[in-house]
C-alpha cells in the first residue's frame, strides 16, 4: 500500500479544512502562490481577496468577534506580512483569536536579505500569543493545528505561522497527518477558579454594602452573558461594562449603569469610586478605565476574575484574585452563593440604589440639539438605534464617533458591538463590518465611522463590490479629526495642529465609483428619512455621509490625573 503524498501547499489547505475553516482572508504574492494554487483546486474553503493585507486581518477579526470562530489570514512574505502587523496588534490587544499564515522566502535564502524577505516572526513577537516557523513539510499540520488551539484557548490571541516557499512547492511531497486533539506540555491554561478563593469572594460579596459588578470583554469572548445576567440579578447590584464589554448585559437592563471610564457615565464612575466591593469579571483595569491609579477606588475590596494571571494586580492590586475562565468562575460563584444561602442586605442595597439614582439623574450622557442648527453626531447614533430597532451589528472605527456609538446605542447582546478598544486602530471599522456581513448576510451591519478613519481603509469598498457585502457605512463627517481636535481644544489652547481634513473627497461619488450607493445628509430634517432609505436598500452597499457639527465634544470625560469619577460633564462643568 502506498501512502498518498501531498505538497506543503496542499497540507496548508487540508489542515485548515480539517479545522473546519470556512474563509481565508488574504492577498496573494510570490512566496504563497503555491497555497493559492491549492486553494484554487478545492471548494471547501472560500478565499476572500481584500485590497490591502491590513484589511484582511481586520476582516478576519470582525468575522471572529461576531461568530466566535478563529479568523484566518493569508499573506505573502515581506510587505504582505508586515501589512498585517497593525491588524495583528489590534487582535492582540482585544484578545481575539486569529491565525495568520505568512509566506516566507525559501529556507536557503532566509537571512540573506532576499527579495520580499522580512523576519515576520521577529516583527510580530511582541504582539502575538505565539508563533511558529515551519521548516519542513511535517511541521505544517502540527504548527497549524497548534496555532488554532493556542489562539482559541486560555486568553485568546493571534498566532503567526511562517511558511517558507521551498516547503510549499510541488517538487516536495510528504504524507499528511493532522492531530486535532492538541496537548502542549508547556501550555495549560487554568479553567476553574480556586475553591478557597471562590469561598472568600462569595463571603466578601455577601458582606458588601455597596457592591459594583464591573465586567469586560472576557464576558463577550466566553459567551457568558446569560450567566452574567443571572449573577447580577442574584446580587441585585449595579453593573457597569467596559468599552469592550458592552452587550455583556443588555444595555437596557435596569441594573446596567452604563459604560465606565474616560467617556463613561457619571453614575458608573461614581459607583466605582464609592463602592466597598468591586467584582471585576473579565476586565483588566485598563488606564482608560481607572484614570489616575493612585486615586483609584480607595475604599473598595477588589475581587478580580480573569483567565490571564498577568492581568491581575498589574495596574490595580486585587485583594481576591481568581484565575479561571470567567463563565466557569461565575458558575462556581453562583453555586457558592446558593450554598451559603445568599440574600442581599436589602436595606443597604436600597440605600445604595438611591444614591446611584441621584447620580443617574444628572443625565451625564446627554447633549443639546437645536433643531435649526447642524446635526449633532449623537443624534445620528440615536436615529440608527431607532431605525435598526437596536438589532444591528455596529462596527466602529476610532475617535469621537466610536464613543458616541458606545454611549448612544444600547447593545442588547454580546458580539453586537465591534470596535478596536485596546489598540485604537483607525481603519478597523469597514473591514471588520465586512467580516461581520460575510458571516451574517441577513443582518443589518453598520460601520459607524468618521471622515478620518474611513479613509484609512477606504479601498475596501472594492472588496465589498466583489463579494456583494452590503454594509451600511455611516460617516459622522465633521471635516476634522474630531477626537484630536477635542484634545487640542481642551489641552492645547485650541491650536488645531494637523487635525483638519482640508481636502475631503466627495464620499458619495467615491461610493458610486465603486458601484455602491452614496447618500449625503446635510440637515436634521432629512436625517431619519434618508437613513431609513439607506437601510431599505438591502442588496447594495450604502455609504451615508452625514455632515455633523464639527464643534461637538464627547462628554462626559474624565479629568486627566484625577480619580475615576472626576469628570467634565460638559464644557467648563465639572462633576
Amino acid at each position, binding site marked *: 500500500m502506498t501512502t498518498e503524498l501531498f505538497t506543503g501547499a496542499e497540507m496548508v489547505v487540508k489542515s485548515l479544512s480539517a479545522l473546519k475553516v470556512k474563509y481565508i482572508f488574504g492577498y496573494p504574492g510570490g512566496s504563497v502562490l503555491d497555497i493559492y494554487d491549492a486553494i484554487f483546486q478545492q471548494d471547501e474553503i472560500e478565499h476572500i481577496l481584500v485590497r490591502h493585507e491590513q484589511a484582511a486581518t481586520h476582516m478576519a477579526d470582525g468575522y471572529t468577534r461576531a461568530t466566535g470562530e478563529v479568523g484566518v489570514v493569508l499573506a505573502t512574505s515581506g510587505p504582505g506580512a508586515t501589512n498585517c502587523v497593525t491588524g495583528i496588534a489590534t487582535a492582540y490587544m482585544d484578545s481575539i483569536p486569529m491565525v495568520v499564515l505568512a509566506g516566507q522566502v525559501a529556507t536557503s535564502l532566509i537571512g540573506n536579505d532576499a527579495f520580499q524577505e522580512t523576519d515576520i516572526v521577529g516583527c510580530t513577537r511582541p504582539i502575538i500569543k505565539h508563533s511558529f516557523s515551519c521548516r519542513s513539510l511535517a511541521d505544517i499540520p502540527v504548527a497549524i493545528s497548534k496555532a488554532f488551539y493556542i489562539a482559541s484557548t486560555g486568553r485568546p490571541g493571534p498566532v503567526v505561522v511562517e511558511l517558507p516557499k521551498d516547503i510549499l512547492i510541488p517538487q516536495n511531497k510528504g504524507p499528511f497527518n493532522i492531530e486535532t486533539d492538541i496537548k502542549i506540555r508547556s501550555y495549560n491554561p487554568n479553567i476553574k477558579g480556586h475553591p478557597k478563593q471562590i469561598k472568600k469572594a462569595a463571603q466578601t460579596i455577601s458582606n458588601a454594602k455597596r457592591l459594583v459588578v464591573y465586567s469586560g470583554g472576557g464576558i463577550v469572548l466566553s459567551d457568558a452573558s446569560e450567566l452574567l445576567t443571572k449573577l447580577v440579578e442574584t446580587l441585585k447590584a449595579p453593573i457597569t461594562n467596559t468599552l469592550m464589554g458592552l452587550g455583556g448585559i443588555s444595555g437596557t437592563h435596569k441594573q446596567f449603569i452604563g459604560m465606565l471610564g474616560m467617556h463613561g457615565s457619571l453614575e458608573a464612575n461614581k459607583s466605582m469610586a464609592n463602592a466597598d466591593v468591586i467584582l471585576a469579571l473579565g476586565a483588566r483595569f485598563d488606564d482608560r478605565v481607572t484614570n489616575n491609579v493612585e486615586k483609584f477606588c480607595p475604599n473598595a475590596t477588589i475581587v478580580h476574575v480573569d483567565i490571564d494571571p*498577568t492581568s491581575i494586580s*498589574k495596574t490595580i492590586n486585587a485583594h481576591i484574585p481568581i484565575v479561571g475562565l470567567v463563565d466557569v468562575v461565575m458558575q462556581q460563584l453562583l453555586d457558592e452563593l446558593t450554598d451559603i444561602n445568599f440574600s442581599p442586605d436589602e436595606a443597604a442595597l436600597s440605600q445604595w440604589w438611591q444614591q446611584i439614582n441621584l447620580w443617574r439623574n444628572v443625565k451625564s450622557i446627554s447633549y443639546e440639539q437645536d433643531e435649526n442648527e447642524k446635526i449633532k453626531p449623537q443624534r445620528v447614533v440615536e436615529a440608527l438605534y431607532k431605525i435598526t430597532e437596536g438589532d444591528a451589528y455596529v462596527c466602529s472605527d476610532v475617535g469621537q464617533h466610536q464613543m458616541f456609538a458606545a454611549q448612544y446605542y444600547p447593545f442588547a447582546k454580546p458580539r453586537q458591538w465591534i470596535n478596536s478598544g485596546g489598540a485604537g486602530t483607525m481603519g478597523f471599522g469597514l473591514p471588520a463590518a465586512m467580516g461581520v456581513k460575510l458571516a451574517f448576510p441577513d443582518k443589518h451591519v453598520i460601520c459607524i465611522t468618521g471622515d478620518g478613519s474611513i479613509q484609512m481603509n477606504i479601498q475596501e469598498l472594492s472588496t465589498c463590490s466583489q463579494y456583494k457585502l452590503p454594509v451600511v457605512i455611516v460617516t459622522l463627517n465633521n471635516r476634522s479629526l474630531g477626537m484630536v481636535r477635542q484634545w487640542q481644544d481642551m489641552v492645547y489652547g485650541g491650536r488645531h495642529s494637523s487635525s483638519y481634513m482640508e481636502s475631503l473627497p466627495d464620499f458619495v461619488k467615491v461610493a458610486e465609483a465603486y458601484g455602491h450607493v452614496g447618500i449625503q445628509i446635510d440637515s436634521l430634517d432629512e436625517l431619519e428619512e434618508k437613513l431609513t432609505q439607506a437601510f431599505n436598500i438591502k442588496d447594495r452597499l450604502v455609504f451615508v455621509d452625514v455632515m455633523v457639527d464639527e464643534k461637538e465634544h464627547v462628554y462626559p470625560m474624565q479629568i486627566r490625573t484625577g480619580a475615576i469619577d472626576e469628570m467634565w460633564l460638559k464644557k467648563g462643568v465639572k462633576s
Partner: protein
Amino acid sequence: MRRILAILMENEPGSLSRIVGLFSQRAFNIESLTVAPTDDNSLSRMTIATKGDDKVLEQIVKQVNKLIDVIKITDITDRKHIERELLLVKVTAMNDKSRTEVTRITDIFRGNIIDIGKHVYTVQLTGDAEKLNAFINALQNETEIIESARSGCVGMARGDQALRI
C-alpha cells in the same frame, strides 16, 4: 532588590528571543542571563538575575510564565539556594612581584591559573557575584586587568527541591 529566577523552557528556536523581547518590551531589567540545554535535550534551563520591587517581580514571573514555551519559572532568591558564576580574567604578569601576587590572590580565592602568555596570566574563578567582585578588586590593587568575561549567574535551590517537569 536583586532576584534570581530559574526558568525551564522548551529548547526551541526563538525561545530565547521571546524571553529577551519580553524583558525589553515591558521595560524589565536584566542584570544577567544564562541559558543552555539541560540533561533532557528538549529543555533549556535559564537563570536570570533581575532587579525590581515586589510588584514588578510579580509581573515578571507572570509574564514569563505566560510565554507558551515556558514550562516553569521560580524565584529562588528567598529560598536556600546555590548561586554560581564563572569568571575568566586576563591580567598583566610582567615581573616576579606581580606573578607572585596574582598566584597568591588566586590561591586565596581558590581560583586556577589556566593559561599563561609572555606577560599575562589567565585566571578562572567560580563563586557568587560577591566573591567574583572581591577577587576583581583584589587583582586590581596588584596588577592590571586586560580582559575579563563573566558568565552571569546560574542558580539552583538547595536540598530536595527541583525544577523539573
